[in-house]
């Protein structure tokens, strides 16, 4: 267990929509300013910026200029930055603060993921580098195909069913009802789920998150400062990033990156993560689990030791699991499936709001300790956040 060096003291969002009508730099600036206002800080307090993207956003340099930052000590664009990095970026801010490179860091993600550059294939040139040189000519161009391979193996090995996947969509949507930020707030049933069209089996439309425009940001600052900000700090208790690659040449999309696709990166990072925080999965009050697809939740519930291998399907379908009011509420904002795809950083922001007790009708009572995860395949990252 290590000492807590930094805390999240501010959270900011833009609206989340299918068409923002403005640039990714404008969105980033709005979210950053909202996060600073939430913290009771100004841009003059900031000496670091960290973001991640897949060449679909502005560089950190752009936000530095937009905020008028003078010589920030840390300015990072973490590339090949899919959702696998959405927690790693907060870990990087914490590391920079520990190293004395920065004192107050804005971590953000901004994208026009629906109206602008969409992830994967549609409407953009086909990427033909690395493993994609072999995938693309065979007709594998987007993430649903890749992650469907994991889902299929889990179903094959453990008997996970389409009903289990559908239950995640249904229960996530129920949480979005009480989230004004969420794009989809109308409840759905399992019948609705099975009526939604197959996209690439086993994935139906409701298994897949909402491509979105928008931005969100958090302000991370050293604990000495965090005690004096406008809102109570949320401690970065642990951060871990890693996973299993297939050796030289692998990239994020490398579906050959793990031998056993019934498992994903969670198994590789959990011991480091929980050990750093001095907690176990049993101690968690709630969890925000990266849900680019329903099946990625199944694999991570097992990978992060919330249930044993093969148990996640029956677990999510249980009468008193996943939902608000259960022992471990999951994806309290509706997740990427119903709130929107701000590429996973909106799991971090929701966890902070929950730990500060600001979530109104969807508030988890006495929320003190949260797991936040990011990633669906061979690599990913995770945080343990808590009241300090």
């Amino acid at each position, binding site marked *: 267990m290590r000492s807590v060096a930094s805390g999240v003291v501010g959270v900011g969002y833009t609206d989340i929509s299918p068409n923002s009508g403005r640039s990714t730099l404008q969105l980033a600036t709005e979210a950053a300013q909202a996060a600073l206002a939430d913290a009771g800080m100004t841009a003059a307090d900031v000496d670091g910026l960290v973001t991640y993207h897949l060449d679909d956003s502005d560089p950190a340099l752009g936000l530095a200029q937009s905020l008028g930052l003078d010589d920030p000590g840390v300015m990072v664009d973490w590339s090949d930055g899919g959702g696998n990095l959405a927690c790693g970026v907060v870990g990087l801010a914490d590391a920079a603060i520990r190293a004395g490179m920065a004192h107050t860091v804005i971590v953000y993600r901004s994208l026009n993921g629906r109206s602008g550059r969409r992830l994967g294939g549609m409407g953009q040139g086909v990427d033909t580098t690395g*493993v994609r040189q*072999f995938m693309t*000519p065979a007709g594998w161009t987007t993430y649903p195909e890749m992650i469907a391979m994991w889902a299929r193996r889990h179903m094959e090995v453990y008997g996970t069913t389409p009903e289990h996947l559908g239950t995640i969509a249904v229960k996530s949507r129920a949480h979005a009802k009480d989230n004004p930020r969420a794009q989809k707030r109308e409840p759905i049933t399992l019948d609705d789920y099975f009526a939604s069209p197959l996209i690439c089996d086993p994935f139906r439309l409701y298994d897949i998150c909402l491509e979105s425009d928008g931005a969100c940001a958090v302000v991370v600052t050293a604990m000495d400062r965090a005690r004096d900000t406008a809102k109570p700090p949320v401690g970065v208790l642990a951060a871990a990033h890693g996973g299993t690659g297939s050796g*030289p040449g692998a990239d994020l999309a490398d579906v*050959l990156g793990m031998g056993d*696709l019934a498992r994903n990166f969670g198994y590789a990072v959990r011991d480091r993560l929980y050990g750093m925080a001095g907690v176990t999965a049993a101690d968690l009050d709630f969890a925000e689990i990266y849900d680019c697809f329903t099946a990625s939740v199944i694999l991570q519930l097992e990978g992060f030791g919330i249930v044993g291998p093969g148990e996640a399907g029956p677990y999510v379908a249980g009468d008193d699991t996943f939902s608000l009011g259960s022992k471990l509420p999951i994806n309290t904002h509706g997740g990427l499936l119903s709130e929107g795809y701000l590429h996973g950083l909106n799991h971090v922001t929701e966890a902070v709001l929950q730990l500060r007790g600001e979530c109104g009708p969807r508030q988890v009572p006495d929320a003190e300790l949260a797991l936040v995860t990011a990633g669906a395949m061979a690599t990913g990252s995770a945080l343990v956040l808590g009241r300090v």
Partner: protein
Amino acid sequence: MAATKPIPTLRGEEKVYFEEAKNGRLVYQLCRDCAQRIFYPRTVCTNCMSENLEYVASAGKGTIYSFTTLHVPGHPEFADDVPYTVVLVDLEEGVRVLADLVDCDPDDVKVGMSVEVLFEAVTEDFTVPRFRPSAQ
């Protein structure tokens, strides 16, 4: 009419792989130092970092490890092909490859199904390996 199929620029490791496909051979790499079998082709071994790799032709037979059938094209260039199935295949030689599956109703695809390779010319200069259910 869908757009032209995407074709990688053949420069390095991938060049050998696709040229061999044009000759009707499905190749993987074998590390001469540690015997690791490697797909897709690289310049260094995924196990021991050796650069002492050779291309070996597979018999082209294996079983499906996982699959998905696309009902909506991931890219406009495949709009005329849906529904189509993409597969991970465990070759008998002990290496996993990826491709698409042809000559098989999507409802009949199963994990563990025996498949064999065939080759299809996308253009005069570019051929892709594909799989179909095994004859027997």
